[in-house]
């Protein structure tokens, strides 16, 4: 089994144009991965991330694609593979559509499950064979403390993130003996566009008494994608200032 990352390997980061995804893309590039920075609409953001990476001596390419589209996954991986064999997949793309359960619409339920969970599964399924053949692979799924912890108004988000954690564990044990790890990061309150509107209300419950930074989540993603994390599999790393404890 290859415990060392093969040369010229590529990492695909979904939702990499801003926030946590952008930070992860930069951090993986700093660790020597060629990075395919996926975006849905924010092309400027994705290009900025790629420019930051190349200015620092790394390799990156923006790749447009809506992960919700069932047909998009193959195209995303095919285009990413032009940078090198895709041996790291970071399923970061995610959306929120908050409402109390008795008011959540089918559309709000399905769109969050589809983007945050089903899309991650489809991309993972398609990326596994290349990793298995290479005897090296890293899937890092970005979940949340919401899921393991309740958060009123986010039944859909919680279900998707909890599902992501469970999915990661099962797939991780399926492929472990081929040198492929599948792990989850569970960020707590991280200061990004997605949390700006709720930050101050939630800080009281955070033992660290502050929001986390995207770079702090990215450092954990870098570790999980690294050779040093070869024996870490089917696990969840909480990056939450103690919130889930």
């Amino acid at each position, binding site marked *: 089994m290859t415990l060392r990352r093969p040369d010229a390997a590529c990492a695909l980061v979904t939702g990499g144009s801003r926030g946590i995804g952008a930070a992860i893309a930069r951090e993986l590039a700093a660790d020597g991965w060629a990075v395919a920075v996926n975006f849905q609409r924010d092309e400027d953001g994705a290009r900025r991330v790629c420019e930051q990476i190349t200015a620092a001596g790394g390799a990156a390419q923006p790749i447009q694609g809506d992960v919700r589209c069932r047909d998009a996954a193959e195209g995303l991986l095919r285009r990413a593979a032009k940078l090198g064999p895709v041996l790291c997949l970071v399923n970061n793309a995610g959306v929120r559509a908050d409402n109390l359960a008795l008011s959540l619409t089918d559309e709000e339920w399905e769109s969050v499950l589809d983007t945050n969970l089903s899309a991650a599964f489809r991309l993972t399924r398609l990326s596994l*064979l290349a990793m*298995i*053949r290479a005897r090296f692979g890293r899937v890092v799924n970005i979940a949340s403390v919401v899921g393991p912890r309740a958060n009123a108004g986010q039944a859909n988000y919680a279900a998707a993130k909890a599902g992501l954690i469970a999915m990661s564990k099962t797939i991780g044990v*399926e*492929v472990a*003996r*081929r040198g492929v790890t599948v792990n989850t990061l569970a960020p707590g309150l991280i200061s990004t566009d997605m949390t700006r509107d709720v930050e101050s209300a939630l800080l009281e419950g955070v033992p660290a008494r502050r929001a986390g930074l995207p770079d702090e989540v990215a450092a954990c993603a870098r570790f999980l994608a690294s050779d040093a994390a070869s024996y870490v599999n089917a696990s969840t790393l909480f990056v939450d200032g103690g919130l889930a404890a």
Partner: protein
Amino acid sequence: MSAQATTETVLDVVTETLTGFGTEREQITPTATFEELDIDSLDLAELAQVVEERFGIQLRGADVKDVKTIGDLVELIAARG
């Protein structure tokens, strides 16, 4: 370009792939079962990928679920060649 899928070439590719998984070469006989060789569904999924790359023949889960021995698998693939 895909290779010709004869019984001989298929057996060669299957043997080469399974020894790569750690199976002892001398144990890979036409009557050996996957169970005896400790070949599971993950191994078969990877073997199916190799078969597709080498011979251009696609194998799905339903195709192989009733296949028990190396010989059965080789015949199945060669028949599709």
